[in-house]
């Protein structure tokens, strides 16, 4: 073990900028009434730690904020029913965790912002509103306190933002990078929707959940749909179906 070296920086410049942006966005969402949902399918204790951090602050006088760890075997199903428009979902998970990949791509249809904490290979650009990533491939990272530091800082900075009320009410357009011509968050081409109920007949609409609630959507352009299918919705009609595996437009 090397004992004499200067400790390496745990939070670099880019990550500190990401933390700052995520904290302000989270504070704004809390200010507007959000609940913070936390998932960590691989490392469940981290989900509980994030939740208790916000619910029961270690510093006297700080606000208790609504945050709940979702630790059911199926985090997507649990988050789907828990989440209301305006909420925030934090995942502490590797970029390869298929449950979290699925959760993150569906969140915009539920009207939820997303923060993704992890290490190793980064998630694809645009996978979450805020990506807080430990730049290390060491598989032991989740047990060394790096994630604990990350969400401690997120909590500390979020509470700093509460001391700036003038900055809490501004609109927040999220942080997803637009890499595709069809950007689901920017809504140029359509809004993301998740099928709740398939059409009762070939001529009837499907019931679709979007960031603004449930609506009837004409799905004749995209063909038969099943509950859970992701669609791009524009002017009451589904324009295209999103591929189930990659999230890319089909």
């Amino acid at each position, binding site marked *: 073990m090397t004992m004499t070296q200067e400790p390496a920086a745990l939070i670099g410049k880019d990550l500190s900028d990401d933390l700052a942006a995520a904290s302000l966005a989270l504070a704004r969402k809390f200010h507007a009434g959000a609940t913070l949902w936390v998932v960590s399918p691989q490392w469940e204790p981290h989900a*509980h730690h994030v939740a208790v951090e916000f619910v029961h602050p270690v510093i006297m006088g700080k606000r208790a904020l609504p945050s709940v760890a979702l630790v059911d075997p199926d985090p997507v199903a649990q988050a789907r029913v828990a989440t209301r428009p305006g909420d925030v979902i934090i995942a502490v998970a590797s970029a390869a965790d298929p449950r979290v990949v699925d959760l993150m791509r569906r969140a915009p249809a539920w009207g939820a912002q997303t923060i993704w904490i992890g290490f190793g290979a980064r998630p694809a650009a645009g996978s979450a509103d805020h990506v807080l990533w430990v730049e290390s491939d060491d598989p032991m990272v989740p047990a060394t306190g790096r994630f604990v530091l990350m969400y401690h800082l997120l909590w*500390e900075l979020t509470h700093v933002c509460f001391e700036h009320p*003038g900055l809490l009410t501004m609109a927040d357009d999220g942080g997803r990078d637009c890499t595709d011509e069809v950007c689901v968050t920017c809504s140029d081409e359509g809004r993301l929707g998740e099928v709740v109920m398939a059409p009762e007949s070939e001529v009837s609409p499907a019931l679709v959940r979007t960031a603004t609630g449930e609506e009837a959507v004409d799905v004749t352009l995209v063909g038969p749909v099943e509950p859970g299918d992701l669609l791009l919705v524009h002017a009451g009609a589904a324009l295209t179906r999103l591929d189930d595996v990659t999230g890319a437009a089909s």
Partner: protein
Amino acid sequence: MTDLNQNTDFLYPFIEGTEHDPDSLLLDLASSARGKAEVSARLQQASLEEYEDRLRAAGAEMADRFARGGRLYTFGNGGSSTDAATLASLFCRPVRGRAVPAWSLAADQAVVTALGNDVGFELIFSRQVIAHSRPVDMAIALSTSGNSEDLIRALTEARRRGLLTIGFAGHEGGAMSTSDDVDYCFTVHSQSIHRIQESHARLGYRLWSVVQEETQRRTTALLAAGRSDPGGNR
């Protein structure tokens, strides 16, 4: 003469509701994040250096106990209970190395609420120590104050039953640091609960690493003895 009612908001740019440009706040937040991370890194390094010898000694004793069939119980309250769970997972489901039996005594909500309701919160862990433990086992308690009554009671019970007892504390160490019932106490010298917990995680990881090294050393010796004694039946 200056107007006594002049606007003095410029002296306090952050305390009122008319602030609209987030850029300077974002710069402050980012700078604060880096500063706190640096404090955490230094504290972790200082804690590792202070306790390296004791961590090696504790890890060697733990490896010996695991080799004799010992089990590890970890426990804490709040965030520290989750850090205790992460530590238990590190021992029983490591990404690399040998898995050994370990679990968090806060993990079972039925047990914790039954004990909390029926016999009192201060006994939620000690009653489980009574139920589960044998003298070859080990107990690790994490408390940023070092004073949590439920942890102290459990460590005392564990010591009475012959377990190896290890405490991770903070601030000035509290009751944990002066108790005769704690074989090894690792006090992280900080007043910040967050920074203490981050160092607890790093020290716990180091302790696990020592146990892995010791276990590997034992395994290597065992296999070498087996090779020199091909008729031996192990």
